[in-house]
């Protein structure tokens, strides 16, 4: 079932004569079903030749120069194999076919520069798959992404103008979008081959991405004329190596007038000497997320690495103690730690702990049972006595939003050890227990003013509960609105938090120790045991 009809003949013949490959001919003849593209290249050439056969056939064959011997031998073998599979008939014409085949294969297509030729072959797909296998990823499906050199768009444009003109002669029109996109045709051909080779489906939504970047240095200059025609499309940017990005070229092609293009770029595009090359074949797995709750039992452990002027203040951090273990087990490239709020270096987090989530970037291992995760949690807990982790689980990226919401709206409970300048008795502090929903005004604490806007924020101290210790000390349990600065509420921050424990007691108070007793966020869900 050769897909071209009689009406396509002039176009097909014309393109073929300019050095265009059969699959690109299909594309420009708007063949939008997959099967023909998947046929072996040799068959396509043969069928196309047959289709285009006319009286002057012999002339075409005569024009074909004999190829190099070596290549002929190699291709001849492949051809014989193929023929035997297909029933092994027509051995007599094998030689002729070889000549035709080599003619096409020696010449890279003037439109796709070889993308729909050798890069559709099993041999290339196998090469990519070997790379995938050796990268050591766990995956159950994949997405295949390709990046073509920008000049392909220029050549595509030139071919389109040409075909449009030819069709115009027949009184037909051809829109830019009527043509089958190169990328589409390439997908139709390669996806089944990947599935077959790797044994998993190709799925656009897969987190596992195999990407190939093609380049064709020989024709890189194809784009250059566009920068004089449409200078405003090619603005240099810091992070770009070249101004000729695919996007910029497509934009410029959209703008340029047909006659200007034709003046400056050959239509049909000339035949290149070489094929594209796959300059980069890479694998990457989308991030996976792990959440849980942590306790922090140390007053010398910051939540994130504490580095001032490039110098480390303390050797570890909560984020590193947790994430380094995850990084190893998930074989990830890097991590991003986030949590529902944070505590100061000298503050402990007790109770059920603080919700956190870790994004594992480009993980090699992603398939875990709940038992695996439980073991991982134990591994973290054994590794340090400064922190403990619970409710460890795999979560989605979206679910992390719950944690951040909680950060702003939920209440927190704390326990503070308070010092007072005045000698106190039990009765002197009891009044604090009776204060409910005390409204306080906090100016941005001096200790964070260098990095936060200066503002006065109103916060609510929902409840307080005092436990008398001695003449100058008591323990204060507080339940507060999220975002309350507790240390400042106790010592007053130079009178910038009003009222404060000192002012309420008509004296001076200071905070000696602070513990977070609970972070009242119900995400991630608690796990049994």
């Amino acid at each position: 079932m050769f897909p071209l009809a009689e009406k396509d003949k002039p176009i097909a013949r014309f393109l073929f004569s300019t050095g265009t490959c059969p699959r690109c001919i299909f594309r420009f003849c708007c063949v939008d079903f997959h099967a023909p593209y998947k046929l072996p290249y040799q068959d396509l050439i043969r069928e196309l030749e047959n289709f285009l056969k006319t009286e002057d056939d012999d002339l075409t064959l005569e024009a074909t120069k004999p190829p190099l011997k070596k290549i002929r031998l190699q291709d001849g073998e492949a051809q014989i194999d193929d023929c035997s599979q297909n029933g092994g008939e027509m051995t007599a014409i094998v030689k002729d076919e070889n000549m035709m085949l080599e003619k096409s294969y020696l010449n890279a297509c003037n439109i796709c520069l070889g993308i729909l030729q050798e890069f559709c072959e099993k041999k290339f797909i196998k090469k990519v798959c070997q790379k995938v296998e050796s990268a050591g990823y766990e995956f159950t499906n994949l997405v295949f992404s390709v990046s073509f050199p920008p000049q392909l768009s220029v050549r595509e444009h030139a071919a389109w103008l040409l075909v449009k003109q030819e069709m115009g002669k027949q009184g037909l029109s051809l829109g830019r979008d009527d043509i089958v996109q190169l990328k589409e045709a390439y997908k139709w051909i390669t996806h089944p081959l990947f599935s077959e080779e790797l044994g998993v489906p190709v799925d656009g939504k897969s987190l596992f991405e195999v990407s190939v970047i093609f380049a064709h240095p020989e024709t890189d200059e194809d784009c250059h004329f566009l920068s004089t025609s449409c200078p405003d499309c090619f603005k240099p940017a810091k992070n770009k190596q070249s101004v000729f990005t695919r996007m910029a070229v497509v934009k410029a092609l959209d703008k340029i007038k047909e006659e200007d293009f034709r003046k400056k770029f050959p239509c049909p595009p000339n035949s290149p000497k070489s094929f594209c090359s796959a300059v980069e074949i890479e694998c990457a797995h989308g991030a996976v997320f792990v959440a849980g709750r942590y306790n922090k039992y140390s007053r010398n452990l910051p939540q994130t690495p504490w580095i001032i002027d490039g110098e480390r203040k303390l050797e570890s951090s909560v984020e590193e103690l947790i994430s380094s273990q995850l990084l190893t087990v998930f074989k990830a490239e890097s991590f991003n730690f986030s949590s529902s709020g944070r505590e100061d270096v000298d503050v402990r987090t007790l109770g059920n702990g603080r919700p956190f989530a870790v994004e594992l970037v480009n993980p090699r291992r992603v398939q875990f049972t709940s038992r695996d995760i439980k073991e991982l949690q134990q591994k973290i807990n054994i590794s340090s006595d400064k922190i403990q982790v619970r409710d460890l689980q795999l979560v989605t990226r979206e679910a992390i939003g719950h944690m951040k919401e909680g950060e702003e709206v939920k209440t927190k409970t704390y326990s503070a050890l308070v010092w007072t300048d005045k000698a106190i008795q039990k009765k002197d502090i009891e009044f604090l227990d009776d204060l409910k929903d005390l409204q306080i005004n906090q100016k941005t604490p001096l200790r964070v003013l260098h990095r936060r806007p200066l503002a006065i924020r109103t916060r609510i101290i929902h409840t307080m509960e005092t436990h008398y210790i001695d003449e100058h000390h008591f323990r204060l349990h507080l339940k507060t609105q999220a975002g309350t600065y507790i240390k400042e509420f106790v010592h007053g921050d130079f009178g910038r938090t009003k009222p404060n424990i000192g002012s309420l007691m008509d004296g001076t108070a200071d905070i000696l120790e602070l513990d977070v007793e609970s972070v009242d966020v119900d995400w991630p869900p608690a796990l049994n045991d």
Partner: protein
Amino acid sequence: MGWYVEFWEQLVVWFDWKLRPPSAAGGGRSHAHEARCARRPPLPRGKAEVRGDLSVGLRSLDLAGAELAMAAGAGGIAPAAPSLVDRYFTRWYKADVKGKPCEDHCILQHSNRICVITLAESHPLLQNGKTIKSINYQISANCSRLQNKVSGKFKRGAQFLTELAPLCRISCSDGEEYTVSSCVRGRLMEVNENILDKPSILQEKPSTEGYIAVVLPKFEESKSVTEGLLTQKEYEEVVVKRINNRSETP
């Protein structure tokens, strides 16, 4: 407490400070004394260490006698927990600001580079018997520190201060007027408006609630802004020398 401040402000117009009854004269100060004298007992878990230079410094002043000794009354005894200021700030001093004898300033620099401008203990305003009549942040006809507004994380719109920039003028009941200067280059974050309503906190708690202003030095100048200032030790030496000179040449 507001009522008695007002009351005394009225009263001092009529009375020379010497005529005030002893209890009343100390009225404003008693709190400050208590605050500074109150011992901070060792913490239950022996958490903090006292900075050595602090207690030594205070003891040496103790020997020097005079006003400061009272502040350091407890200095020699049990190790105390460091105060809020000692925990997070470094004290820098400038003596005889703008050439005016004894008008010493103390700049508290936080480890995040923020500077809190305060009066040093030895400043005439903090000596016995001074009564503050008014504090004025209007430093010239068209510049008031109260007009300072900062917005956003990057504190746009802040007034820029040089070392010599005046922050406020404080006039006393005895007719003296003192100018408080920034002493550090940087942008003005805020001035302490609390002392306008209640000037006595300036004397009661000069290094905490009685601060004058908050200044944010440029990031690249966070170290250099304190270069011309005295360390706590150097400052104490200046004060001791000053007292000795006074007793030698009466």
